[in-house]
């Protein structure tokens, strides 16, 4: 079948516990831009059990259509029924682009589905655009250059390099997209979804694993990706107890505390609070890097922050290479005094 028969930009609308994940709205925002460049529309693919009520919300964030697969087999995420559902949607509706969030679900679903529908998949993309492949036509072979291709840009080598990838000869062009990078649109109040219901049928086979137990993280974990101000601590904070200094500063600023990988490895903070390559990508308005040396894996997760302020006693710490304002000094003296100054300012 010809590649030109594949049309439209599709996004996987991840939901967990019948609540749409933020990444779905981010993908819709980017999907709309790509669709505009291609002169096509955006379709959200929603898989779950009793999730029809979520469709309008997807319309509010820009979905022109919603393909809904609603089946009891899809109540809780498992690779197999979900991969079957998404691969069946792709085979039935033939999108030219299929975007999936690079979440712990999407990074399992994406590769399984891409292998099933025999196409390429580019992981953890941070930039998506429409363009030509090759970027510059080979002289004498101008007619071999393909237009309107999805160009997928991603960091690799722990953020040391950046590569732009195309998938010129297979459809759909598939990418997983790093959460927290793409922008949502302002929701369109009262938008109603154009819903297409589809069910490929589900028959259990050897690939269906059994869920014995679902254990959610204790307490309501606030998401550091939603914070406007992050006060982030590293190994230099010294101890779990000493994070109190950062808690106080975050409270005074109305922000949240996050941390580096070393802090998680030392057991001072849960992984939910980790920023970086193996943690979360954040882009708050202000990012305080306190006692964080700034390993490349950490920087990859926070360098898009609008304003970066680093406090570190080591004047040669690599964090100063990305900080807008770097303060060489003792965090134990500076942080409490800063907290007091901010409180005093607020009382004026």
């Amino acid at each position: 079948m010809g590649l030109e028969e594949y049309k439209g930009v599709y996004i996987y609308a991840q939901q967990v516990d019948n609540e749409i994940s933020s990444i779905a709205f981010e993908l819709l925002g980017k999907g709309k831009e790509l669709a505009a460049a291609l002169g096509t529309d955006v379709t959200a693919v929603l898989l779950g059990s009793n999730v029809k009520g979520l469709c309008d919300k997807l319309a509010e964030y820009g979905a022109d259509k919603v393909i809904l697969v609603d089946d009891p087999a899809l109540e809780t995420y498992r690779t197999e029924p979900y991969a079957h559902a998404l691969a069946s949607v792709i085979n039935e509706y033939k999108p030219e682009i299929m975007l999936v969030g690079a979440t712990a679900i999407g990074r399992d679903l994406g590769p399984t589905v891409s292998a099933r529908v025999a196409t390429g998949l580019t992981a953890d993309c941070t930039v998506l655009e429409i363009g030509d492949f090759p970027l510059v036509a080979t002289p004498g072979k101008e007619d071999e250059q393909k237009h309107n291709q999805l160009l997928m840009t991603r960091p690799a080598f722990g953020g040391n390099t950046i590569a732009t990838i195309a998938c010129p000869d297979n459809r759909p062009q598939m990418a997983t997209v790093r959460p927290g990078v793409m922008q949502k649109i302002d929701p369109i109040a009262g938008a109603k979804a154009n819903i297409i219901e589809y069910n490929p049928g589900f028959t259990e086979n050897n690939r269906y694993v059994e869920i014995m137990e679902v254990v959610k993280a204790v307490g309501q974990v606030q998401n550091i990706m939603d914070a406007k101000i992050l006060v982030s601590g590293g190994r230099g904070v010294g101890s779990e107890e000493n994070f109190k200094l950062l808690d106080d500063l975050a409270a005074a600023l109305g922000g949240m505390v996050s941390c580096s990988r070393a802090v998680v490895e030392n057991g001072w903070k849960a992984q939910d609070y980790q920023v970086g390559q193996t943690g979360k990508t954040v882009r708050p308005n202000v990012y305080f890097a306190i006692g964080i040396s700034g390993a490349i894996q950490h920087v990859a997760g926070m360098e898009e922050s609008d304003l970066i302020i680093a406090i570190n006693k080591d004047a040669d710490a690599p964090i100063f290479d990305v900080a807008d304002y770097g303060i060489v000094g003792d965090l134990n003296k500076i942080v409490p005094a800063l907290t007091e100054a901010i409180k005093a300012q607020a009382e004026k």
Partner: protein
Amino acid sequence: MKIVVCIKQVPDTKGGVKFNPDGTLDRAAMLAIMNPDDKAGLEAALRIKEETGAEVTVLTMGLPKADDVLREAMAMGADKAILVTDRVLGGADTWATSSTIAGALRNIDYDLVITGRQAIDGDTAQVGPQIAEHLGLPVISYAADIKIDGENVIVKRQYEDRYHMLKTKMPCLITALSELNTPRYMTPGGIFDAYDEKEVTVWGRADLKDLDDANIGLKGSPTKIAKASDKVRKGAGEKVNLDATESVNYIMSKLTEKHVI
């Protein structure tokens, strides 16, 4: 019980990154180590071996020098090692890599295949699930704990805000997180055996089963590199070295200037 652990020799990112003129990685020019997630997967397999007497085979696809990580794995306690290497397999993306490794696994008896969740060079996390797809195996990725229970395996599958305890009948494929365990060191006796006693089986293209030429190497890779470069970072800003009070004043002035407070 037979376990195959798929491992990858990866460039140590501390050593810098080099490219070939065609935009693919110049692996030959970089320092090389066993990928950390794969090493955790190997350690998990070795612990199952201690418990159940399982046989552990390590498998890698790479350049001839990937022999090093296979010897290291045997020095840690793996029983057998297979190196899949052939010029025609080079430049593979995750589709072509997983197709190739599936072609090798079709030659081997196994109950359990373990891969790392992701490699530190590509960071894709795709090859494990894609191998499972090619072989029709159940896949459990992001494993934070693995237990054998008769003919079943029970896995703690990690998500961002929760975990699932999953159970499936073997054969199956599991992708391991580094958090799974702390890998053991090689032993002196193990090193001796690995380099002087044990053999690495080497397979080329012709040894791989049910594998179409259209699905291997650079040509068989659906994804193509349009451009690759060192990342351009935003430059350093101001750096000051002041006493604590002046430091606070400095930060306060910047926060005010930027309308944060």
